[in-house]
């Protein structure tokens, strides 16, 4: 068996679609033998559709994918696919996809390029890609978690690579990587241009109002004062 299997979604709310994408990414990285990658366009090997949506074209669904599951309830009484109950989580998704993978048996697909979201740990920091937030994440992604809020805040300010994010946040690599994958799943990240392009853009940018001169020790002293 070679290559990756493609899984997509249809008719799901943006937040749920983002969650599925993020879970697929996490399983890609952490589950042995997981051969699935999220795809945003057909053809699919497996397609997850929103169960209550009865307006989905059944014929096109059959053409677009080799296997299907409806989320929450069967799309129709004669629904030929599986049903995955809400709320969706990694275990349910993995169980469904494992079943599909086994049912499809031996197959050949074209290998899908994995997006280099977090680079190999031995790559030089200067070569690691930098990412920045496109917009503030939805509340259901942050869950009021102060660590996630901190990571998102840092990335809202400027583009950071994994090493810089770990250093600034003082959080372990695993937590930073997991959050990056979640942001990527919600399509909230934009990769920064190269360092040369950044310098050119900064030189061309209009001059911002002057900021106070801040020395690094100030931040820590203010945090100490407030007990942060």
């Amino acid at each position, binding site marked *: 068996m070679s290559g990756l299997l493609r899984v997509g979604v249809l008719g799901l709310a943006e937040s749920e679609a983002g969650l599925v994408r993020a879970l697929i990414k996490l399983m890609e990285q952490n589950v042995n033998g997981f051969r699935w990658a999220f795809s945003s366009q057909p053809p699919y090997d497996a397609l997850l559709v929103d169960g209550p949506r009865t307006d989905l074209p059944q014929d096109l669904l059959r053409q677009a994918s080799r296997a299907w599951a409806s989320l929450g309830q069967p799309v129709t009484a004669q629904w030929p696919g599986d049903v995955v109950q809400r709320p969706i989580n990694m275990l349910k998704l993995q169980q469904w996809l494992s079943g599909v993978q086994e049912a499809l048996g031996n197959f050949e697909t074209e290998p899908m390029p994995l997006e280099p979201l977090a680079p190999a740990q031995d790559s030089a920091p200067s070569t690691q890609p930098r990412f920045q937030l*496109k917009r*503030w994440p939805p509340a259901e992604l942050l869950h009021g978690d102060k660590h996630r809020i901190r990571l998102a805040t840092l990335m*809202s300010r400027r583009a950071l690579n994994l090493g810089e994010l770990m250093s600034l946040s003082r959080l372990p690599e695993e937590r930073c990587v997991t959050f990056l994958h979640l942001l990527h799943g919600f399509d909230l990240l934009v990769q920064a241009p190269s360092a040369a392009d950044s310098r050119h853009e900064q030189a061309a940018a209009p001059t911002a*109002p002057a*900021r106070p001169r801040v020395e690094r020790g*100030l*931040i820590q002293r203010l945090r100490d004062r407030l007990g942060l």
Partner: protein
Amino acid sequence: MHEYKILFTGAMGAGKTTAIAAVSEVPPVVTDVLNNDVSNAKATTTVGLDYGLLTLEGGDRVRLFGTPGQARFDFLWRILVRNSLGLVILSDNSQADPLAHLEIYLQGFRDELASLPCVIGVGRTEAHGSPRLDEYAEVLARHGLVLPVLAVDVRQRDDVLLLIDTLLAQVEAQLEGDA
């Protein structure tokens, strides 16, 4: 000895005075008068500014300023925001159109927001779930801004600390970029 400042702004009743009181080491100086705006039930409103203080080890000071909330005092906003460490915009989700208020502050501070650390604190979200925090983010995105939007209760010191900590994280990210 160096002096720094953090600015709190937002509509009348959004909690600027309360937020400063939650963290200031001195009782905040409050320049309140009776509120003669019949559209708002608040008994008093700030017509000058609120003032709080934090003294750091080594003697440096961080002054906390709260701006008057009405748009007619925007001349004060532009004076106060100069050379500030960051800006906290407080919003009251129980008001009729909090997103319209946000637009006022984004417009009033638009020049500074190109580089100034800023966080949006939204109050009373438990009882008033609309607009959602994501709608605030959408307004910011329309202004080309990516700023933290957090649900807070400024009567809780920990929530005010979260707002300030979020500002400080932005300053740290900028320092890293300037290095």
